[in-house]
């Protein structure tokens, strides 16, 4: 597609500005209209009616990190798949084999993860 970037993406940018504008407006309006009568009980973090002690931001299970990690790597794989799918009609068997190889290698990693229990939530 030949064309000016602005013609294609300018509207998108504008939409972003508009969406952010609306969100900002909503935030402002709710600040303007909402009453504010803070008191210590209202302000305290929710913990089922018990006064919380200590910092809520406690170190968390490393499992979450693993999920994000696996996600990154598979995300990249998925991203590579898109240009591939785009020109797949021209690549044919060659494209199939190369992507199969690619997928197989990553699949090996996937199987490794699985076997290692990185995908199990309750180890």
């Amino acid at each position, binding site marked *: *597609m030949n064309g*000016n970037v*602005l*013609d*294609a993406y*300018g*509207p*998108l940018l*504008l*939409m*972003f500005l*508009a*969406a*952010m504008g*609306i*969100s*900002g407006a*909503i*935030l402002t*309006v*709710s*600040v303007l*209209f*909402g009453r*504010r*009568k*803070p008191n210590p009980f*209202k*302000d*305290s*973090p*929710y*913990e089922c009616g018990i006064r*919380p002690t200590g910092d*809520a931001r406690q170190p*968390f299970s490393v499992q*979450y990190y693993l*999920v*994000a990690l696996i*996600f990154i790597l*598979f*995300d990249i794989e*998925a991203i590579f*798949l*898109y240009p591939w*799918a*785009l020109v*797949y*009609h021209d690549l*044919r*068997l060659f*494209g*199939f084999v190369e992507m199969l190889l690619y*997928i197989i290698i990553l*699949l090996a990693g*996937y199987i490794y993860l*699985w076997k290692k229990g990185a995908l*199990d*939530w*309750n180890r």
Partner: protein
Amino acid sequence: MEFVAQHPILVVSLIKIVVLLFLLMTALAYVTWFERKVVARIQSRIGPLYVGAHGLLQPLADGVKFLFKEDVTPPAADRFVYVLAPFLALSLGLATIALIPFGPATIMVLGVPTQMGIANVSLGLLFVFAITSMGVYGVALAGWSSNSKYPLMGGLRSSAQMVSYEVSLTLSVVGVVLLAGTLNFNDLIAYQSGHWRYVRFLPHWNVIPQFVGFLCYFISAIAETNRVPFDLPEAETELVAGFHTEYSSFKFAMFFMAEYANMITVSCLATILFFGGWLSPFPERWTWQLYIPGVGLILGGILLAYDTAMNQRGIARIQLAVVTIGALVIGAACLLPSVMPVVQGPFWFLLKLLGFLFFYVWTRGTLPRFRYDQLMDFGWKFLLPVSLANLVITAFVVMVLNR
């Protein structure tokens, strides 16, 4: 302004944006109404009833209520991030719609022919994914900034969940791209026009060859939008309200609006990718289908009128009369020869969209919720391999058929 003259399209899109955002915000409000009504029906209840006829003004009342609610910001929270999170969530949720084309027809705005849809981008699909991939931040930051245990857990949970299902989401769509060889929404829809060669009554929609892909996509989409049975982040019975426990007033509502906006986006995407977007399911030679929108609206109007006359009293009657007249007028307008072709695309698109939204609500009415580990297992150990396999098989079949 010099560059306005250079880029007339910007002015045109500004107008479209205003219109679309208005419609979208209304739609968001009424999707909640729709959901409440449908779920109520499923659960043999009535649903919103008192504010306006059939509770039609309920969303408005809700909005006003949210507006006047006290906006509590916990002092322990990281204020900047705390405010940023709903802001991010909502603006990303709203902005994605810009990439969705609602109809094929070019309409004239300020004398410039332009599409029904804001941005027509050659890599539309990728940009949708790009924007949704940022959606994680809204959730994660909300959970983190609240500085409270339940939100933190909810935030971590839901961001991990969204991230997990994003993989299968992206993978499940590759099959469609393989078939069509394009990432542009218009081209994707164009690819699906017509009917199958041998089964001529079946429209040439991707859902048929890519049924597995569609299932993967839709399941992932449900998870991605944190809806039942994947609504773990907000699993109220465990984590109270998940990442938005500490949010109140309109900030709370913003998360909900974002959720509904995302629902609409992924449903639009499903419509475009698998159900032929704005295409009608009928063959082109059946010209009578052009009357469906108009006639449908008029029939709906008549039904409403009947309901109004039989069941409603007082002010509700007036409200419904207005709606009825609106439906009749628009329906009649849709039958005008000049308008008729224009409304076809949006009509079918919205109809399919509504179908998906109904499906969303339906699952919510029927299914229990997964447990978190089951959810992650499902995503990583089932959906991911299945969508990969679907991809490989599709690639193989495409290769063989291409020879």
